[in-house]
C-alpha cells in the first residue's frame, strides 16, 4: 500500500523510505521551499514531515491488520507538534508509532530527527480519521 505522493509533498521534497528495521519512515530533504532562516527549516515543514510519517504508520498498521490492498481514506483530525530544537536544513526523518488503532480513528506518536535517531528535533501526536 504505497502512498501516492501529493503535490504538496513534491513541493516540499517529502518522500517515504524504509528504516533499517523495515518500517516506513518519512524523509524530507529541505530546499528553498522549506527554508525559514539561516540553517533552519520552517516549523510548518516539520509539521508536514510528522503528518506524513503518521499516515505511513497508519497505512502499515492497517495492512498488518489485514485490511487488504484497497487504500483506506485517511483524514487528519488534529495534530500537535513539540519543537525541541531547530530542524536543520539537511535530510530529516520521521517515524510514526501507533498508540492505538481503532475502527474510526488512529492515535499516532511521531518523532523527527536529523542524523541521530536518539537526538530528536520534534515530536508530535497526531489523530487520524479512517474510512475503510
Amino acid at each position: 500500500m504505497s502512498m501516492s505522493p501529493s503535490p504538496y509533498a513534491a513541493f516540499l521534497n517529502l518522500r517515504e523510505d524504509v528504516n533499517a528495521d523495515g518500517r516506513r519512515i518519512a524523509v524530507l530533504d529541505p530546499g528553498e521551499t522549506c527554508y525559514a532562516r539561516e540553517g533552519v527549516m520552517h516549523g510548518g515543514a516539520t509539521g508536514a514531515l510528522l503528518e506524513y510519517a503518521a499516515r505511513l504508520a497508519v497505512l502499515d498498521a492497517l495492512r498488518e491488520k489485514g485490511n487488504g490492498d484497497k487504500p483506506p481514506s485517511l483524514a487528519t483530525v488534529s495534530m500537535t507538534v513539540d519543537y525541541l530544537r531547530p530542524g536543520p536544513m539537511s535530510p530529516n526523518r520521521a517515524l510514526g508509532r501507533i498508540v492505538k488503532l481503532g475502527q474510526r480513528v488512529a492515535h499516532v506518536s511521531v518523532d523527527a530527527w536529523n542524523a541521530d535517531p536518539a537526538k530528536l528535533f520534534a515530536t508530535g501526536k497526531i489523530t487520524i480519521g479512517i474510512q475503510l
Partner: protein
Amino acid sequence: MAPKIDIASSPDLDGALRIFTSIGHVAKMGLVSTGYGSGWIGYHLPWRKDLTSDATSDVIDNAVIYSVLDSACAITPWAKLGYFFGYPTLDFRVDFVRRPTPRTDLIVRGECYALDADYAFMRAIAHEGDPDDPVATGNGTFMSFNREAFRK
C-alpha cells in the same frame, strides 16, 4: 538559497511583513499579508495546485493549513508590543475542523493574546470568507529567544 535577511533589523511591521512573506517557505507557499491590528496579523493564501493533497480533489493539503496557521502567529508579538521580539514555536496544535472547499483561497488570521519575557501565547484561524465557518484553528506556545531584551 534565500538571501540572508535579518527580520529584526526592519524598523517597522510593514517592512517586517514584506521580508517575512518574501523568504523561503512562507514566500514559496504564496502567503500574503493583508493587514494587522493590536496583537493580530491577517493573511491570504491563494489556492494553488501544488499546495493540494492529491491530483484529483483540488483541496489544499492539511499540512499546508498547519503551516499557514503556525506562520500567521510567528510575528504577531510585534503587532502587540510595537517592536520586534522573537518567539520561535515551542508547541503548536491544529484542529482540522472541516474539509476545505476545492480550488478555494484561505483567509488566515494569527493572534497573540498574551505574552511576557519568556512565552507568547497564540491562536489562529483559517476560513474561506466566513470566520464562523472555519476550516481549521490553531493554538500554541512560543518561547522567546532572549528574555533580557524584553521591554515592558
